[in-house]
């Protein structure tokens, strides 16, 4: 369901239709899961039948191949579920009181959705949550307000990082703000990539890029926002079924 605090018209439209489609896709996956399970049940029953008919050459001769294929299909289904779950989270990212997800969870989902784009340069982005406690309290932010600039940042730096490189992204709560730090595992960052990100972030409201040395990691700060519901949104607007 879409919360009333989503304000952007285009974003709201995309949020509503995407969330509704993701919900339906999960129903499709649920049917797949049970159908695969039933096929496995049938194959297992075939084995039992064969054991009972000792000496009888029968049963399903392609059983092992089918079991392999079912395992592969289950793997692909798990992948689809993960992507759809991440997409559903993104669809709710305009909401302030929407689907509960901490910044690390929301960023992990965003990275999963962007994996195909990052693969263009074989870029690996590792989310470092080592400094986040399980009961960490986070600033109140709409997910879109930090996921959007972060995605723009990654896309901007993409052409300027070496093919096959690795970036590390850390996420911390810091005095009513969310602090994201992006850099190489050794702590540096390509100066050209930093300049490209600066250009992009200049046009994005809400994100503050911390000044630093040209090869220092990129630090983005997002300040906590007021939580009141905009008066322009009528109660109950955007309820998806």
């Amino acid at each position, binding site marked *: 369901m879409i919360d009333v605090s989503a304000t952007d018209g285009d974003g709201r439209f995309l949020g509503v239709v995407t969330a509704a489609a993701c919900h339906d896709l999960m129903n499709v996956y*649920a049917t797949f*899961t049970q159908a695969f399970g*039933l096929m496995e049940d049938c194959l297992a029953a075939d084995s039992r039948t064969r054991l009972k008919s000792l000496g009888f050459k029968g049963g399903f001769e392609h059983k092992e191949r089918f079991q392999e294929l079912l395992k592969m299909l289950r793997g692909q289904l798990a992948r689809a579920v993960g992507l759809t*779950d991440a997409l559903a*989270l993104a669809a709710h990212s305009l909401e302030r009181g929407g689907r509960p997800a901490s910044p690390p969870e929301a960023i992990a989902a965003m990275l999963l959705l962007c994996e195909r784009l990052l693969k263009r340069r074989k870029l690996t982005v590792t989310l470092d949550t080592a400094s986040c406690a399980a009961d960490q309290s986070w600033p109140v932010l709409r997910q879109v307000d930090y996921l959007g600039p972060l995605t723009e940042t990654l896309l901007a730096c993409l052409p300027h990082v070496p093919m096959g490189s690795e970036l590390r992204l850390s996420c911390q709560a810091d005095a009513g703000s969310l602090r994201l730090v992006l850099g190489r595992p050794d702590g540096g960052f390509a100066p050209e990539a930093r300049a490209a990100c600066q250009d992009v972030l200049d046009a994005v409201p809400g994100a503050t890029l911390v000044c630093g040395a040209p090869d220092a990691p990129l630090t983005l700060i997002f300040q906590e926002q007021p939580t009141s519901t905009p008066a322009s949104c009528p109660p109950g607007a955007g309820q998806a*079924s």
Partner: protein
Amino acid sequence: MRIHDVNILLVDDEKEFTATLAERMALRGLRVRCAYSGEEALKQIATEKPDVVIMDVMMPGLKGLDILRHLKATNPEIQVILLTGQAGTRDGMEGMKLGAFDYLLKPLELDALLAKIAEAAAIGGKAQ
């Protein structure tokens, strides 16, 4: 009493999902019936009272939470397990407040559901 003695009602408007899940449960010797809408579920419950109802939250017509409210007012001994999409955890938690035994996220594995049914039936004194 064993889990095989538990009378189960599956309620979901996704017919292929419900029928396939019911077939798998029946293959394991469980007593299971299906209803494909909230209205049909209420009729079946009036005819033969189940021990455990497994019900999708988001259905056309009577919603899962509406049926849950009705059941908890009229047949509080029936245990209800809600099924919800990944984004529906709020509905699941709302259901728990209304008296649902628990909620599970779709897609779900049969073993997890069977374990939950056994727990729910044990509350009602029907399973070991």
